[in-house]
């Protein structure tokens, strides 16, 4: 009797263990499409669409939009779509996505960062060509290049776009009689004026490496678009034929900001920085409007504006950076191509897209978007309309990460300008080697 009992208990334990593992595996297996067509006749055919979006911040908006999509698909094509929406936290979303792509378990539609990720995912062959899709014609010209791969094919539909330079405190500027400077010399004059009035010109928040990182696209973007010998800088760097020593002038504005900023910059993180800027502790903050929510949470009455950062004395180089971040792409090996492509087109649907983008507080990306944006977005859009903007340069992600850390070290006095530029060159070369 005793032995039988022992045997039974250990069997139950083992079974429970396997059931736990088996359950997870089984769940993944049965979500692929059945594909059997029943179109035209009364009974709708069922399709499961797997949608992967980084970060849970847009969950409620996506849920609502998906319901609208499902209704439309049912009405127009008699397809009952079962959407499995996955929204893992931003920190490991990219990880999870990569694991799934590498193990042939990819979602049908997934989000990626247009500027940072498209070339990498494209090289690995995971992006479906969407150039013939109806949404492509609706895209604004300013946005199309960002979602186009190196072979000229559109591979994603843009969601989030950013127009940015630096943020400034409108109240302080108007009180001191300052308007956004158009050259570095004018900026220096503004800095002196602020210092004379005992106002700290710049807010420095260098604890998170992602903030000093912003200097790179701002300076490189402006320089490659205005100086002839630098026009092909990115292409040459991709072939190991360039060097950051050509970009030495970027340190002029970096030094100006560093020398005229708030104390203890390395201890202030992004959120603390947003709170301090909202409290009026400095007149300007080299950051983007994606911190609008944090700033307004800290001080709902704060009025801030977006202005292009001057980097030298050429007023033509003072431009807004236009970037496309979160975008949706279709997995090249998707078994639900039709529904996936329909969804991606629906993002820019003639009827429903406007409300969707407005509720998400995104910028307009297509001709179908007619909603009113925030005052600072309008301000930035003015610059764009005047042609004073450039595409966020396609710098490899690893170089962007490296510059964040390098500028932190530079600020702390641990690295010289030459060492920073050498480190950036090395990282770019390493990236070329790894991603060839």
């Amino acid at each position, binding site marked *: 009797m005793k*032995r039988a009992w*022992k*045997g039974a208990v*250990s*069997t139950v*334990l*083992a079974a429970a*263990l396997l059931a736990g*593992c088996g359950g997870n595996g089984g769940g993944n297996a049965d979500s692929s499409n059945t594909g059997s067509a029943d179109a035209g006749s009364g009974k709708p055919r069922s399709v499961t669409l797997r949608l992967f979006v980084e970060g849970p911040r847009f969950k409620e908006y996506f849920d609502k939009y998906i319901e609208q999509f499902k209704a439309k698909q049912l009405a127009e094509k008699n397809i009952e779509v079962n959407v499995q929406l996955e929204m893992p936290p931003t920190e490991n979303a990219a*990880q999870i996505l*990569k*694991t799934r*792509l*590498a193990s042939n378990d990819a979602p049908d539609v997934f989000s990626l960062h247009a500027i940072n990720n498209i070339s*990498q*995912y494209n090289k*690995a062959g995971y992006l479906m060509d969407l150039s013939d899709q109806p949404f492509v014609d609706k895209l604004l010209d300013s946005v199309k290049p960002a979602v186009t791969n190196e072979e000229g094919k559109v591979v994603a539909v843009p969601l989030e776009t950013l127009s940015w330079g630096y943020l400034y405190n409108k109240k302080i500027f108007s009180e001191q009689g300052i308007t956004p400077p158009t050259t570095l010399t004018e900026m220096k004059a503004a800095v002196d004026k602020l210092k004379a009035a005992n106002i700290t010109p710049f807010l420095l928040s*260098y*604890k*998170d*490496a992602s903030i000093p990182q912003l200097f790179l696209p701002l300076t490189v973007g402006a320089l490659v678009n205005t100086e002839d010998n630098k026009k092909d800088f990115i292409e040459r760097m991709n072939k190991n034929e360039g060097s950051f020593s050509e970009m030495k002038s970027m340190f002029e504005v970096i030094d100006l900001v560093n020398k005229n900023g708030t104390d*203890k*910059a*390395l*201890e202030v993180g992004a959120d603390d920085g947003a709170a301090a800027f909202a409290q009026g502790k400095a007149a300007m903050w080299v950051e983007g409007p994606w911190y609008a929510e944090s700033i307004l949470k800290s001080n709902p009455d704060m009025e801030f504006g977006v202005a292009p950062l001057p980097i030298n004395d050429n007023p033509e180089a003072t431009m807004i950076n236009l970037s496309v971040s979160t975008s949706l792409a279709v997995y090249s090996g998707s078994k639900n191509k039709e529904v996936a492509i329909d969804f991606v087109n629906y993002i820019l649907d003639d009827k429903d897209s406007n409300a969707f983008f407005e509720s998400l507080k995104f910028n307009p990306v297509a001709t179908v978007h007619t909603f009113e944006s925030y005052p600072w977005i309008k301000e930035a859009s003015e610059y764009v309309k005047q042609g004073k903007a450039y595409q966020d340069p396609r710098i*490899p*992600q*690893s170089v962007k*990460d*490296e510059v964040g*850390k*390098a500028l*932190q*070290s*530079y*600020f*702390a006095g*641990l*690295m010289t300008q030459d060492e920073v530029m050498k480190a950036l060159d090395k*990282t770019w070369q*390493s*990236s070329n080697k*790894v*991603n060839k």
Partner: protein
Amino acid sequence: MELKGSKKYLSLAAFVTPALILYTLFLLIPTIGGIYYSFTDWDGLNQDYNFIGFGNFVEALRDDPDFLHSLWFTMKYVVFMIVLQNGLALLLAVFIETRRRTKGLFRTVLFMPNMISIIISAFMWTFVFSQVLPQLAVKTGLMFLDQSYLGDPKVSFFSILIVSLWNGVGYLMIIYIAAMQGVPQSMKEAAMIDGATPFQSFFKVTLPMIAHAITICLFLTLNNAFKVYEVVFGLTGGGPGRATQVITMNIYEEAFSNNFRYGYANAKSVILFVMILIFTLIQIKMTKKREVEA
């Protein structure tokens, strides 16, 4: 009669199997997988990769100054931790043992920091370092308190040390207290009768009798200090730049940002594993020799 023997082993095996399966699945297989990938140049995304033999290992030790810096920084941290964590824990254990009525109170209070998870400790201390102490410095006029605890690389090493010690000393202290309570009173009294001073009694009687606890505690400190991550992450994030980046952070950065070089990061992990293995084996061999039975 042989049947009885094998039946015994059968039931043993049945009970061990579930744990063995978990161990194999979640420890052995990933470790072996990791070692396998360390000989390739896989980037975590592509489906194909190449074997490059020891190329990753050579690169890590020869062409990667950030990795070498993190190795050196971690070793510095390990040495300080071994000496300070054990020294302080032993000191506090001895001091607590001298108390009669307040023994339990002090033991509880000094153990409390250990009950807080290390990452929360790091956040609490970030608040203290970056906001409270500077404000305190201004209010009391003790300006030496107004340091850049987290931003200045020279100071942040000690900030990290302080938080690790604050969190970890309590745990070792409890072990030492228990060990000291196992030293027979008769031995200590015999030493006193023979005219030994408290210092002599401690070093010649108590210390050898708690040598087994010292072995364990040194091992724990050595093992955990090499793998430090959360406290550095919470306080400085490895910064500024990479000034306070420890090995684990360097590996994490290599695998999950930069160029996502999984193969290379795995190689660095193998190097870390081998280092810890060698150091702990040496340490245990050395201290086991000094252990004495009562």
